[in-house]
């Protein structure tokens, strides 16, 4: 599904990723952990195509295509989804409208018909309920005045609706209380399937109690220095980054 080879990327002429390799097969859940500034968000942004980040070397293939050749919206339509660390507010645009526009935009790129309004409404209602998102919240402008938890739940709602094949979650757990964390994790888990893969970026082991990863990678200075199974996260929690880095 996703194959990253020797990825080097910079932002504002500063090298952030220095030869990163990662392969994600269909159905796998990978977690990436690492200290602040390690380049975790940079990786997520490069995958999604944010053009402030320059790819200086390496290859990325996504569904056997050259990902770097695709525009941001083409990547999205092909199943790349990024749950933002800091979701954006758009005044005046109802959340519901935004959801519908993005869904139909993706369908259009894929050459599919637009979803009819009643079908769309039914779908949203069902998914929103699952995430404890009220109809009132859907009428409010996108993320405007939303609490941190509401913003993150709104990201997951979009993920449930768009049904991407690769879900990249950038610190979705930060700023969530334990109840919200559970709701978000349930949402994410409901999407787990043999065809869908996930890349979960997190600081803490906490989220991984709820979303169990198949693989855990530790990212330091723009490189994966250690990979393992879910026990690596526990090890990290116990020993801290310093010891892991020293041992690596």
């Amino acid at each position, binding site marked *: 599904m996703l194959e990253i080879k020797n990825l080097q990327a910079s932002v504002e002429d500063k090298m952030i990723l220095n030869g990163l390799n990662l392969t994600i097969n269909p159905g796998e859940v990978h977690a990436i952990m690492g200290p602040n500034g390690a380049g975790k968000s940079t990786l997520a942004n490069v995958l999604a195509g944010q*053009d402030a980040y320059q790819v200086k070397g390496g290859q990325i293939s996504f569904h056997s295509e050259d990902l770097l050749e695709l525009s941001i919206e083409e990547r999205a339509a092909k199943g790349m989804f990024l749950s933002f660390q800091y979701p954006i507010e758009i005044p005046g645009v109802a959340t519901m409208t935004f959801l519908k526009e993005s869904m139909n935009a993706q369908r259009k790129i894929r050459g599919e018909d637009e979803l009819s309004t009643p079908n769309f409404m039914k779908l949203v209602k069902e998914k929103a309920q699952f995430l404890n998102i009220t109809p009132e919240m859907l009428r409010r402008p996108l993320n405007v005045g939303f609490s941190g938890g509401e913003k993150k739940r709104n990201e997951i709602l979009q993920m449930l609706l768009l049904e991407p094949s690769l879900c990249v979650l950038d610190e979705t757990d930060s700023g969530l209380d334990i109840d919200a964390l559970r709701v978000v994790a349930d949402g994410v888990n409901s999407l787990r399937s043999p065809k869908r893969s996930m890349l979960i970026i997190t600081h803490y082991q906490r989220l991984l109690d709820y979303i169990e990863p198949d693989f855990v990678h530790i990212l330091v200075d723009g490189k994966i220095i250690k990979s393992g199974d879910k026990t690596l996260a526990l090890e990290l929690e116990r020993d801290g980054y310093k010891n892991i880095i020293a041992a690596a």
Partner: protein
Amino acid sequence: MAAVKETVSQVAEIDVDNYKYGFTTDIEMDKAPKGLTEDIVRFISAKKKEPEWMLEWRLSAYRKWKKMEEPTWAMVQYPKIDFEDLYYYAAPKKKVELDSLDDLDPDILETYKKLGIPLKEQEILAGVKGASNIAVDAIFDSVSVVTTFKEKLAEAGVIFCPISEAIQEHPELVKKYLASVVPVGDNFYSALNSAVFTDGSFVYIPKGVKCPMELSTYFRINEPNTGQFERTLIIAEEGAHVSYLEGCTAPMRDENQLHAAVVEIIILDDAEVKYSTVQNWYPGNSEGIGGVYNFVTKRADCRGKNAKVSWTQVETGSAITWKYPSCILRGDGSQGEFYSIAISNGYQQIDSGTKMIHLGKNTKSRIISKGISAGKSSNTYRGIVSTQRSATNVRNFTQCDSLLIGDKCSAHTIPYMEARNSSSVFEHEATTSKINDDVMFYCQQRGLDEEQAVALIVNGFCKEVLQNLPMEFAVEAQKLVAISLEGSVG
């Protein structure tokens, strides 16, 4: 290239290709010589076969104007206009007075067709345009070429005709109301307009009548070096209701064209007037060459109790816009509203806003202004809300929002509030936001392309105003908003 950087470079290209109304019409014109003298004023008056009183009125306006100075307080910059280098009268030669639409110069008919304005009533009735019930007054340079649905309106007692015709046919109404809201000497351009106005629309809605259809006027400046000075007068008697829309376009020309209009609205007890503008004059090219100077005085006088006026404007065109549709809230309980979308792109300059003058008790006003700046443009909101001492329980709500696209444009908000009365309640809200790379990236990550993203954000930004347009035009206006920002995205 980052989205916004790309935006900025592409904004530079907004010109010729994006202005869809820039064609010219080749027809024979009857013109007065260039320049402005008493003789030109006499010439215009004679061409219009005006009565003596009208000529005298114009001449006195001309003499006032001669003594006045061009205003310079607005936040706009342009080379000094040479008023001696303009034509003040230009009319299509063929058949000025029409017996029927079939006599209309086919070139003019074609022009309006290209603009998407249906003049043939049959076509409108056949639903060609989808907008079923709209009477149109079409003004081509200095004269009204045709007014549709006149008879049907007359049955309801509504008068809708060119103002030149009203001067002939309804002199008592014209004498009573002309310049009663905007005095001749109100400002430099109102004086100039009074001296040389050539046409415009006249609307009279008698007592208790709800106008059976939307009224609209389409202005078109075609001739080069020609000023368009239109004069519109709308009178709503007690309990009358009317909704009026004006649309404006001009061909692309390298020289600047001057448009200096005066619109006066008189609203009596319990009457209601809704005035909507979709202004899309040629904005000039990517270097800021050419474009219309739009210097306009618009004012409504709520003379009666519980009178109501609502201005809605979508300003996307013109090189320079200088325009402050205002409400004099004289009658107790009267209400004024101003809803505005002002979009500036390329080198456009806008200085626009409103005045709400509360003279009556329990009067209310509401201002919703949405300024969108892109390219290297400058966009200023300038407004005044004032209350007289005797006007108790006045309410005003003002909201001024600015949206910036790119970082070479500017937005300014200059609200004045003058409350001479402690019972006044003024509320003011203002926001400035920016379409930056982060917002674009977020939208694109969800599947929208740049153009869809900007359209979504901008339409969300000005939704409250778009909702106020008559339904038939709301969709058009929404498209226009997108078109005028087309150059600002990839």
